[in-house]
């Protein structure tokens, strides 16, 4: 049995269902609105597993699901050496979001990573602590800032309402996922004029760790053939 992990709620689930549906594989929830059970029609021997999008990377890496739909951002943040654990099979064309670094719009002197680094050095000298950047994407942001040559910053964990941390004086800048930038503007923040940390979208991944017997291989081939990836 091939297990396909799909986000358990919201637009990501609906759009994933649509994506598979237009390719002749019908996914659906079964039972009551509140029950996380699903069905697959169109290919035999495939089971639908409804999961939080944030748990799908872990389940793929553990080999408990064979296929999974989640954002590239979550795969890269949560899996060390992600490309050895999962194979990217198809970008699904929705759930677009960029992981970006944003600073207060009033920082008219800061637009590049070079500016951010200089501002961080001066900030530390003036305030006695490193410039705080609020994020939940610690690994991705740290790698990005190291490659960008930024030092004298510190990451502070923020699992939600990250855009509000600057006005609340718990961070000087943020790194977060944004799709339209409206929330940033509403909180008087601006995105650095640099390549984003990551461009993310909903993506179908295959686990490189999940065990496959002969029947599973045949099912997987059939499914790949059907959805054209």
């Amino acid at each position, binding site marked *: 049995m091939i297990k396909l992990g799909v986000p358990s709620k919201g637009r990501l689930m609906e759009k994933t269902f649509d994506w598979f549906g237009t390719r002749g594989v019908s996914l659906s929830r079964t039972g009551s609105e509140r029950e996380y059970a699903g069905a697959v029609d169109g290919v035999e021997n495939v089971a639908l597993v409804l999961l939080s999008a944030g748990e799908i990377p872990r389940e793929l890496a553990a080999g408990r699901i064979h296929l999974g739909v989640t954002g590239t951002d979550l795969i890269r943040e949560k899996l060390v050496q992600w490309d050895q654990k999962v194979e990217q099979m198809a970008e699904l064309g929705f759930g677009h979001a960029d992981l970006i670094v944003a600073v*207060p719009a009033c920082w008219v*002197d800061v637009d590049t990573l070079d500016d951010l680094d200089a501002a961080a050095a*001066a900030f530390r000298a003036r305030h006695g602590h490193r410039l705080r950047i609020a994020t939940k994407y610690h690994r991705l942001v740290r790698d990005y800032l190291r490659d960008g040559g930024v030092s004298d910053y*510190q990451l502070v964990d923020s699992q939600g309402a990250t855009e509000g941390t600057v*006005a609340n004086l718990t961070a000087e800048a943020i790194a977060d996922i944004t799709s339209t930038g409206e929330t940033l503007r509403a909180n008087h923040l601006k995105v650095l004029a640099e390549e984003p940390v990551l461009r993310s979208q909903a993506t179908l991944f295959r686990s490189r760790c999940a065990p496959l017997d002969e029947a599973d291989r045949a099912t997987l081939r059939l499914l790949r053939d059907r959805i054209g990836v």
Partner: protein
Amino acid sequence: MSLVSVAKAAQLRAAFESAGAIPVETGVLQPAETLLDLYGEDIRARAYVTHDPVQGEMMLRPDFTVPVVQMHMSDGAEPARYTYSGKVFRRQERHPERPVEYLQVGFEIFDRADPAAADAEVFALFADLLKGYALRAVTGDIGVLTAAVAGLGASERRHAALMRHLWRPRRFRQLLDRFSGKTPMPPTRRALLAEADPMARATPMIGLRSEAEIAARIEALRADAAEPPLSAEQVALIDAVLAVKAPGPFALERLRDIAVDLPALTPALTRMARRLEALSARGVDVGRLGFEASFGRTSMEYYDGFVFGMIAEARPDLPPVATGGRYDALTRRLGQGREIPAVGGVIRPDALMQMEGAA
């Protein structure tokens, strides 16, 4: 790590004790704040962080030098020689095949009398203890690099920026390219400098960084734009210094040639010459001892003078078997107003045993 590594570690520590070192121990848990202040956020990618309900964030010691320096600075007698042996812990996100905990045996000298002699003492002791192994020794001197940067005659601001990134070669190069006009000013900065009153759009003010701080940075950018670029000759001198790679005395000769145009190098070269003499006096064949000006630039930021490494060239899979260097500035940063010249190094017994095929 195996029993033979533990036995090797004990043997090395005993040898360091015979060389006059007092054995010391440090806590496995170290306050994270000190290490974060020294190394910045990058240390989180390399060290294990844990949490104590009373003491806050703690790190599993990623090395011994910092706690040993703290111990010496708080109640050490002078001069002092210390040795230690124990595990250090390193996260290996990029190289999961490398060990996350391994033994280090170290030797550190805190002595004001004669830094060149102390450098030579550490190196000669390490070379002697490891003489049975097929290792290539390489040396460098961060002091030569800092003297070269200081000798550029750039503004205090540019000098500080270059010094801050001396240990990040790529960022250092970016700055040199910017200061020499090789890379053009980014369009955003050009636009900012063209504005009559950029602060007018600095609204609304949010966050801890104040209006005055933003205005001060704009002033600094204006001043920098008005400063003449570093000349191609100045950049060539830095490149020439960084490219020096030869056995000690030849490297010194080459650097002395460069110092004709970059006289600020001279005091650092005098120290280097004294070190070579001290190494010779201890029986090191300096004519065959490699010197690479760029060596040590990408390792721990605290080295600021002599640096060395001993590398198993036939085993590129192994980390350097021994590394060390001088860290006077670290004693200043951790010394709460006091400082003392200090130099030391560590040996990795596991790597040694792997060279022997015993681990």
